[in-house]
């Protein structure tokens, strides 16, 4: 609005003049008002005085006129007074009434406004104390106002004149002292170029005034501005140089760099990024890539990249990720993108080509899940496949898969017999055959040794799985040509189905293993489906195993003794110590129910120590009682050679003060079969300590006669199955006879077990058997009954 006013109306001069005139008008009006009122009063006073004086001049005549009540004389006096312009009217009263009343002709309308009426008593001319009349004099208000007006207007004119002079003086002073120098400075400023050193000159004579100081301040400001401009100019040059340097670094970096907004629009980027993302070749981007939406480039997962950008910008956190990019030639490239928020809703991206790393990483990952020998997956690889298969099936109740576990029957023997290289070749061939048996989408993995697993996605029917299992057994059962040597191997296959059998990887693996175990146990070379009963059995075994450990601690085991009778001396010479388990809830558990499990799990070693201890304790007791019995204890294959070392045996006997010859160790043929050399060493050592060795269950297994020759046993124990059938079966009798004869010829003693009646005893005695044991004499009994049994046997033999 101010700009719409003409320039002169904004000038200081104009404003000052307006202010001066305004205040002068106000002051003048107030002054005139005061003057008018004062003048009014004064004129009124003057008029009264004037009228008084007028009356004084006619007083003597008036007094006479009143004294004598002379109307003529009074009228004459009144007329005289009316001649005075100030007088409007006169009334004269004598002592007896009004003498005269005279007014001007035009007085009628003024009488009401009369002010300052003068009333004076008239004294007698002869007696000043006597009042003889009264005169009333009305002044003319108009004449009164006229006088006032004249006076006031005169004073007003004087005042206005005075004010006009003062305002004029102010305006002139303002103009000369302020406006003109300011105007001059302003004009100078318009033309002034501070950068060239122009400065304001101080108008002459104004050095010490505000104008002079203003000019100096303006000059100082100009100096400052010029200095700052110089600084800024230098700074800008520096910045430009820096910018060029950084631009060069940015442009020449081998790493792709770009700046993107929230939506993924590339606002700026370097050459390396153009190369990496092939902007010139990309159909979606302009040749220079500027303004392209990064998400529309050839990423394999553009959505994930978009999310990364948004999360970086929104959360103000540096993010990074690896993204696959498809180049124009179709090759894929892995790029690592590190996004850093740079404010203003933008992010800076640094792109590195990590294709090499990625490939190496993939290779390493593949290697980690690959079996190096066969090239199929390894156990972790299979577990991964299993997990992903389970994930795929998740939420789809109709989907499922089959898992198979394949084991080459007898592979260990091949490995041991023909050496590892041959074994490896066979494993390779087996892996190839397995791969050939299944589809490319199925997974084949080598779990360990000769164990392979096969994952068959979408195989949910037992019939189909059985088909494949059959095919595998057949395929693996064919001849392996190794260095022109034909080798035959069987294969056992365990099969489990997801989701029917189990829902998670560990359970599936356990189940398939159980199925495989069953297949192997039942002879091998066939396949077996997992059956919940297997799991139950396994569970029972697990319980049993844990119970066994507890039983040892709780002393639930005890030794029973079955007497051994020497036939040549017809005496009781010792006993076989047999372990019994008194389970708190199951009652007496037979050895058959837990010994195989104890052997399998290795618990037999602990149990063996306990048995040894218990046997030695009993021997010590007998020894103390003067009974020269010996005790035989059973040693399992698992206890040889380290589970029950010869040194330990000797030490334990020594501890109890028992002679080694009192303790007999019963071993089975199986011990000798497993690792012949180790067994041989063990036996030799044991014998040097003086322990006796019985070969238990002779005749039931391989019963290689060469073993009897090779191994230093001193007694052969004829299995009870032969002894039992000896009475009716001639061949059995012959067999027993042959064993006894053979033992004798090898200078080995014989013990027959399972003797149940006197006939058998007689036969054995006849055959020349050295010792017997069996229910005929006594069943195995706890030690407290043993003395009674001794008595009973003495009776039988007597």
């Amino acid at each position, binding site marked *: 609005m101010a700009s719409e006013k003409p320039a002169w109306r904004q000038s200081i001069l104009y404003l000052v003049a307006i202010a001066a005139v305004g205040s002068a008008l106000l002051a003048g009006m107030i002054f005139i008002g005061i003057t008018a009122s004062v003048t009014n009063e004064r004129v009124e006073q003057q008029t009264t005085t004037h009228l008084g004086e007028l009356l004084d001049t006619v007083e003597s*005549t008036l007094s*006479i006129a009143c*004294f*004598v009540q*002379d109307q*003529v*004389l009074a009228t*004459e006096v009144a007329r005289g007074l009316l001649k005075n312009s100030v007088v409007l009217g006169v009334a004269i009263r004598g002592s007896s009434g009004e003498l005269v009343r005279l007014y001007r002709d035009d007085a009628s309308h003024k009488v009401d406004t009369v002010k300052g009426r003068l009333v004076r008593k008239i004294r007698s*001319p*002869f007696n000043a104390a006597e009042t003889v009349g009264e005169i009333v004099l009305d002044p003319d208000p108009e004449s009164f106002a006229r006088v006032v007006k004249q006076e006031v207007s005169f004073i007003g004119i004087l005042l206005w004149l005075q004010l006009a002079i003062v305002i004029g003086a102010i305006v002139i002073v303002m103009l000369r002292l302020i406006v003109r120098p300011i105007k001059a400075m302003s004009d100078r400023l318009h033309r002034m170029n501070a950068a060239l050193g122009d400065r304001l000159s101080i108008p002459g004579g104004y050095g010490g005034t505000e104008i002079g100081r203003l000019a100096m301040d303006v000059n100082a400001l100009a100096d400052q501005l010029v200095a700052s401009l110089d600084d800024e100019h230098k700074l800008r040059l520096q910045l430009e140089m820096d910018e060029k340097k950084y631009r060069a670094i940015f442009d020449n970096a081998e790493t792709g760099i770009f700046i993107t907004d929230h939506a993924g629009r590339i606002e700026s980027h370097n050459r390396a990024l153009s190369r990496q993302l092939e902007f010139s070749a990309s159909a979606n981007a302009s040749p220079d890539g500027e303004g392209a939406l990064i998400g529309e480039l050839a990423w394999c997962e553009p959505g994930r990249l978009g999310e990364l950008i948004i999360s970086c910008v929104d959360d103000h956190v540096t993010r990074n990720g690896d993204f696959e990019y498809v180049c124009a030639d179709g090759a894929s490239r892995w790029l690592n993108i590190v996004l850093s928020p740079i404010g203003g809703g933008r992010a800076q991206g640094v792109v590195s080509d990590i294709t090499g790393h990625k490939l190496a990483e993939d290779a390493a990952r593949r290697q980690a899940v690959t079996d190096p020998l066969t090239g199929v997956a390894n156990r972790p690889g299979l577990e991964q496949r299993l997990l992903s298969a389970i994930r795929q099936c998740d939420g789809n109740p109709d989907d499922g898969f089959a898992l198979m576990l394949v084991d080459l029957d007898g592979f260990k023997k091949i490995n041991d017999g023909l050496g590892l290289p041959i074994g490896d070749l066979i494993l390779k061939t087996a892996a190839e055959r397995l791969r050939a048996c299944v589809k490319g989408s199925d997974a084949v993995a080598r779990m360990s040794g000769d164990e392979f697993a096969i994952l068959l996605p979408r195989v949910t029917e037992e019939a189909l799985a059985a088909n494949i299992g059959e095919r595998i057994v057949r395929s693996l059962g064919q001849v392996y040509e190794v260095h022109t040597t034909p080798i035959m191997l069987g294969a056992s296959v365990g099969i489990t189905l997801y989701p029917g059998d189990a829902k998670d990887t560990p359970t599936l693996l356990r189940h398939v293993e159980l199925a495989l175990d069953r297949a192997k146990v039942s002879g091998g070379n066939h396949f077996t489906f997992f059956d919940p009963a297997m799991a139950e059995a396994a569970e029972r075994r697990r319980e049993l195993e844990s119970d066994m450990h507890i039983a040892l601690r709780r002393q639930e085991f005890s030794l029973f003794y079955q007497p051994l009778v020497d036939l040549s001396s017809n005496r009781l010479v010792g006993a076989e110590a047999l372990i019994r388990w008194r389970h708190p809830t199951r009652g007496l558990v037979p050895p058959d129910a837990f010994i195989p499990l104890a052997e399998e799990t290795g618990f037999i070693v602990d149990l063996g120590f306990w048995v040894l201890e218990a046997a030695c304790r009993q021997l010590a007791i007998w020894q103390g009682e003067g009974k020269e019995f010996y005790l035989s204890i059973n040693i399992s294959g698992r206890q040889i050679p380290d589970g029950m070392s010869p040194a330990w045996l000797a030490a334990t006997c020594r501890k109890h003060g028992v002679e080694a010859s009192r303790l007999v160790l019963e071993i089975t043929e199986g011990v000798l079969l497993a690792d012949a050399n180790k067994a041989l060493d063990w036996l030799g050592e044991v014998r040097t300590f003086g322990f006796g060795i019985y070969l238990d269950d002779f005749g039931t297994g391989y019963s290689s006669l060469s073993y009897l020759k090779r191994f230093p046993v001193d007694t052969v124990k004829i299995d009870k199955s032969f002894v039992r059938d000896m009475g009716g079966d001639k061949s059995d009798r012959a067999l027993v006879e042959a064993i006894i004869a053979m033992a004798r010829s090898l200078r080995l003693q014989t013990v027959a077990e399972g003797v149940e009646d006197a006939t058998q005893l007689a036969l054995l005695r006849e055959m020349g058997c050295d010792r017997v044991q069996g229910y005929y004499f006594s069943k195995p009994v706890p030690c407290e009954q043993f003395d009674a049994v001794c008595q009973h046997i003495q009776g039988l033999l007597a």
Partner: protein
Amino acid sequence: MMRLAVIFCALAMLAGGAAAELVVVTNRSAGVERLSRDEVINIFLGRLQLLPSGIAAQPVDLPATQPERSTFYRLLVSKDLAEINAYRAHLMFSGRIVLPKEAAGAEDMLSLVAGTPGGIGYLERAKINDRVKVVFEFSP
């Protein structure tokens, strides 16, 4: 000067009073026995045209040459003759007022008073006679 003059006049009055006592007389049939000083003044200076008895008053002055006239007015209103004359000049202007007749002398005064029913004049006590009645005395 005025003050000196007043003192002088007062002295003269005392002297006059001592020398000759002036009395106011009226016609015997004027029906007036006594007059007050104010009544005398009013009658002689034109204010009253009638005597208290209702008879038109006719004041009579002694000739201006006789000192009694001057004494009379001095005693009556403390004014000298010039003042009295100036006063009477105003009254003459209107012409309504009856001015005192002028007697030629004391004898004439007596005759005029006695000869006019409402006649009233002044004389030295020594010069009055029975034809007139004293109605006012300037008390010493």
